[in-house]
């Protein structure tokens, strides 16, 4: 009987891994996505139940308590979180996954430390790798969470010798790893390596600005998968290796898509803050020299412009998410359509703080899918658009990306709202975008600013349009 159990567990893993693959495939199409998610969840359930039958597992009470606590917290978080806070949520969950993988490797190290048998070289290598990837994922994700939640400032943080410090830490890590391979039972060195991994995660995310967050979140998503894989190598468990590889691949694909949308290479996104610091000083000086003026209007004028336009394109951005204005925006679009205005939405691939952020929010507000347009589709249409309504977007509509080689966002494909007949920008104040760049769009003659929180302003616009 006992011989059948291990085989049964392996076969259950095979079923679970197949369900993960099917689930991910179905997640790629809107019609089947929900079922795909359920399939993957069933796969996870099977894998967990099968693992609990393993002979190594004896201590059920504490494990079940742990699962109960985790499930409760996970359920509450999933129910409570606002759709607008989804990037933080994904960032935090990434970090927890990475943290769990690190702890698994550490726990295994402690177990081997206590046993009399020697630790093999490949065990040491996989444990060090697992701690490295998991540790970077943990602290990197927590820092990304803190930036997105605005617990700390979102702009890139650069300090002197930062790059030197990172390189030095990597070198120390390599030396420590080699030492550990030779002296595998040295606890101090192992803990030191863990500490360095955690520091590297911080150093990795801290110089990256908010506008690049979609790239970072996707990359950390990939890392959380690789961390699970690495933990799988530590325990020689195929289920972990396969699942981690799948997630790693999906994260890499999303990272590539995001980089392409910004016309930048991954290394450029990750390391540009260092060189950025210099050029930015020059760019800022030139802006300060010429006193520029902005044209400010009130909602009544805005409503008139929108109501009597033939075509309006709405460009949502992070500001809409922060103000939770998506429902008000949808209502405004409804009112405008009632007046016969052609309303479309233009979605920049990196609008917001996460891949697909705006799509999720507008879906929550029941905006019909065909009204959402990708950057490539909508850009040629701006010349024929009467009013481009920018709601809380900044860097993705900054014309400086086209011509100002000194600008940090130079070269990024943008939504060309400055080509519309008129542009109305709803914004809280004249503060800079998450990338910390001045936006010359605001100073153009055709641009009108509507200051205020996105939700208040759009709600006011709705009531004004109703009276037209």
């Amino acid at each position: 009987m006992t011989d059948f159990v291990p085989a049964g567990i392996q076969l259950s893993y095979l079923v679970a891994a197949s369900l993960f693959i099917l689930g991910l495939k179905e997640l790629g199409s809107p019609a089947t996505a929900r079922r795909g998610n359920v399939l993957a969840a069933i796969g996870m359930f099977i894998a967990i139940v099968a693992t609990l039958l393993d002979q190594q597992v004896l201590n059920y009470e504490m494990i079940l308590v742990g699962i109960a606590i985790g499930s409760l917290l996970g359920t509450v978080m999933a129910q409570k979180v606002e759709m607008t806070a989804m990037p933080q949520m994904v960032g935090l969950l990434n970090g927890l996954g990475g943290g769990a993988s690190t702890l698994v490797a550490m726990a295994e190290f402690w177990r081997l430390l206590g046993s009399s048998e020697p630790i093999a070289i490949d065990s040491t290598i996989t444990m060090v790798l697992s701690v490295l990837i998991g540790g970077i994922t943990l602290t990197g994700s927590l820092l990304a969470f803190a930036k997105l939640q605005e617990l700390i400032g979102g702009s890139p943080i650069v300090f002197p010798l930062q790059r030197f410090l990172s390189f030095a830490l990597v070198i120390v890590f390599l030396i420590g790893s080699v030492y550990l391979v030779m002296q595998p039972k040295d606890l101090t060195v192992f803990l030191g390596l863990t500490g360095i991994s955690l520091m590297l995660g911080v150093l990795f995310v801290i110089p990256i600005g908010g506008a690049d967050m979609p790239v970072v979140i996707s990359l950390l998503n990939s890392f959380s998968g690789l961390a699970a894989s690495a933990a799988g190598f530590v325990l020689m468990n195929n289920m972990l290796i396969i699942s981690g590889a799948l997630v790693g691949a999906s994260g890499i694909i999303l990272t590539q898509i995001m980089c392409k949308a910004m016309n930048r290479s991954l290394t450029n996104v990750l390391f540009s803050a260092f060189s950025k610091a210099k050029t930015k000083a020059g760019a800022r000086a030139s802006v300060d020299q010429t006193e520029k003026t902005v044209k400010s209007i009130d909602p009544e004028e805005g409503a008139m412009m929108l109501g009597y336009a033939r075509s309006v394109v709405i460009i949502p951005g992070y500001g809409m998410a922060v103000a939770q204005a998506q429902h008000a925006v949808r209502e405004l679009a409804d009112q405008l359509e009632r007046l016969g205005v052609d309303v479309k939405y233009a979605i920049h691939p990196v609008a917001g703080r996460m891949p697909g952020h705006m799509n999720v929010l507008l879906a929550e507000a029941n905006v019909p899918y065909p009204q959402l347009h990708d950057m490539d589709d909508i850009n040629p249409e701006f010349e024929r658009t009467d009013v481009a309504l920018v709601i809380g977007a900044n860097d993705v509509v900054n014309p400086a990306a086209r011509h100002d080689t000194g600008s940090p966002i130079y070269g990024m494909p943008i939504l060309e709202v400055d080509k519309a007949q008129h542009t109305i920008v709803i914004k809280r104040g004249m503060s800079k975008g998450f990338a910390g760049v001045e936006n010359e769009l605001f100073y153009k003659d055709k641009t009108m600013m509507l200051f205020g929180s996105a939700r208040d302003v759009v709600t006011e616009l709705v009531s004004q349009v109703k009276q037209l």
Partner: protein
Amino acid sequence: MAEGLIAGLVVFVLASFVGFEVINKVPPTLHTPLMSGSNAISGIAVIGALLVSGAHEWNVTVILGLIAVILATINVVGGFLVTDRMLQMFKKKEVKA
């Protein structure tokens, strides 16, 4: 032991290729659900956590393992539920459109 490592590498590389093939064309609308869904799958680390925390007597390994169980379970449960919540909205919209 080295054979085990190589067998693991074979599985890892092949699974990565499967991942790339399965996911390569995803519409922008589904980027977020794909990310949170695959994120939940990365919570598979829970299995590793279960395996290391199974011992009867209390020691550092078990304590670390149990913390890992809690973290990974939050990742799994939270990830799948929040993905479902999002996809539910997409579905509603499809019916309307």
